[in-house]
């Protein structure tokens, strides 16, 4: 058994490193980004290999999906860069590069040594988590960590997401405030893009719902589902089938704050019902978690979609 897995590792790890090196070192930025997209895919494979399907789902949707699209979109909209000459555009000369390379190699080696020096047997919380899992009624320990035991992290994290969106919106030129993010996409009617935009969103809705539902007991959950929904929404926008919403809309804003607000509300209600902030009354853990996740999924989907769409560029309709 180990032989084949080792072979796989010995192929996969060098590929990851090669993709990363090329993403950093490729001469053209476009090439670097394509390598980064491939790198995200390879990482998703690594997560599957390590038995971390929850993470693999997130990486597949975010690392290989949204981040790549974000970077590609940005590159297409940046002004053409002048031909790169070392030093001309603020990039360091050879000596500095060498110094940086030595520093980074030393850091990587030190980090590697620290990894090798980690104690054996390795400490961890897997057993503690397994012992507490039945009390939650959930089957997926990662969901239990994210929404029950370390729900506070997750609450702050969804606030981070919303805050990033406010940050992106804060870059709107003043006359366009309240307007619509991104350009209006044009497509050939009955063309391939339109076809894709028609077929994939319903499929994505289905897959997203599946990942969301599975999340309570098997790998999946609000973040993965939200990302999938965001991706197919963006696809429908790029296919010109629908337009991004104007950011001044009250309904949109309520959807955006809805997830975090429900989470915070349930958390504060926990003060009364469970005697602790972000606590759940013993018999209602699973239904409350599913409620919070449902609200979060919607908010995350819309927030992520708008994050990638960027700052408003068109005046409100």
């Amino acid at each position, binding site marked *: 058994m180990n032989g084949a*897995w*080792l072979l796989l*590792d010995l192929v996969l790890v060098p590929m*990851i*490193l090669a993709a990363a090196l090329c*993403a*950093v070192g490729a001469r053209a930025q476009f090439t*670097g*980004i394509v390598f980064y997209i491939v*790198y995200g895919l390879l990482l998703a494979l690594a997560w599957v290999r*390590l*038995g*971390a399907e*929850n*993470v693999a789902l*997130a*990486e597949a949707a*975010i690392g290989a999906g949204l*981040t790549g699209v974000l*970077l590609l979109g*940005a590159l297409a909209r*940046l002004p053409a860069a002048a031909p*790169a000459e070392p030093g001309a555009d*603020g*990039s360091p000369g050879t000596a500095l590069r060498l110094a*940086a390379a030595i*520093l*980074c*190699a030393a*850091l*990587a080696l030190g*980090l*590697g040594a620290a*990894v*090798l020096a*980690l104690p*054996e047997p*390795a400490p*961890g*919380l*897997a057993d503690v*988590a397994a012992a507490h899992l039945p009390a939650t009624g959930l089957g997926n*320990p990662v969901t*239990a*960590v*994210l929404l029950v035991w*370390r729900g506070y*992290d997750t609450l702050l*994290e969804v606030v*981070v*997401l919303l*805050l*990033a*969106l406010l*940050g*992106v919106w804060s*870059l709107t030129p003043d006359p366009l405030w309240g307007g619509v993010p991104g350009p209006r996409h044009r497509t050939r009617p009955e063309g391939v893009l339109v076809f894709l935009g028609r077929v994939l969103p319903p499929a994505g809705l289905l897959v997203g719902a599946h990942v969301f539902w599975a999340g309570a007991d098997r790998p999946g*959950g609000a*973040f993965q589902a939200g990302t999938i929904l965001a991706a197919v929404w963006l696809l429908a926008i790029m296919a010109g089938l629908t337009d991004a919403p104007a950011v001044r809309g009250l309904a949109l804003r309520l959807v955006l704050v809805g997830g975090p607000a429900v989470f915070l509300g349930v958390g504060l209600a926990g003060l009364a019902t469970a005697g602790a902030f972000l606590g759940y009354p013993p018999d209602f853990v699973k239904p409350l978690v599913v409620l919070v996740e449902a609200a979060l999924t919607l908010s995350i989907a819309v927030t992520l979609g708008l994050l990638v769409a960027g*700052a408003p560029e068109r005046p409100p309709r």
Partner: protein
Amino acid sequence: MTDAATLYGLCGAALVGIGLYGLIVQAPLLRKILAFNLIGSGVFLLLGAIAERAAPGRGDPVPHALIITGIVVALSATALAVALLLRLAGATGRSTLSPEPPPPAPGERNGG
């Protein structure tokens, strides 16, 4: 399985180094943003290896949850950085930061 965990842990360490190199050396801001993402995913791989070491075969769920949180946080930061970069390029035509801090603006422009 522990061997695999160590291998991926070392891979994560190398990725942190590669990403940091890119962040320091590359001038175009988009490349810096990309390099930052490489460092981030290197750290996540490190955490994944730690999860696998702690509970071979099933994985420690706590680091897995931390990674998912980290991935979302990294995406948020990336989106903000990209938006800032596009706005910077739109306003000044630049897509790099010059090594010196930008010269102070004339006071008159600060009035409003």
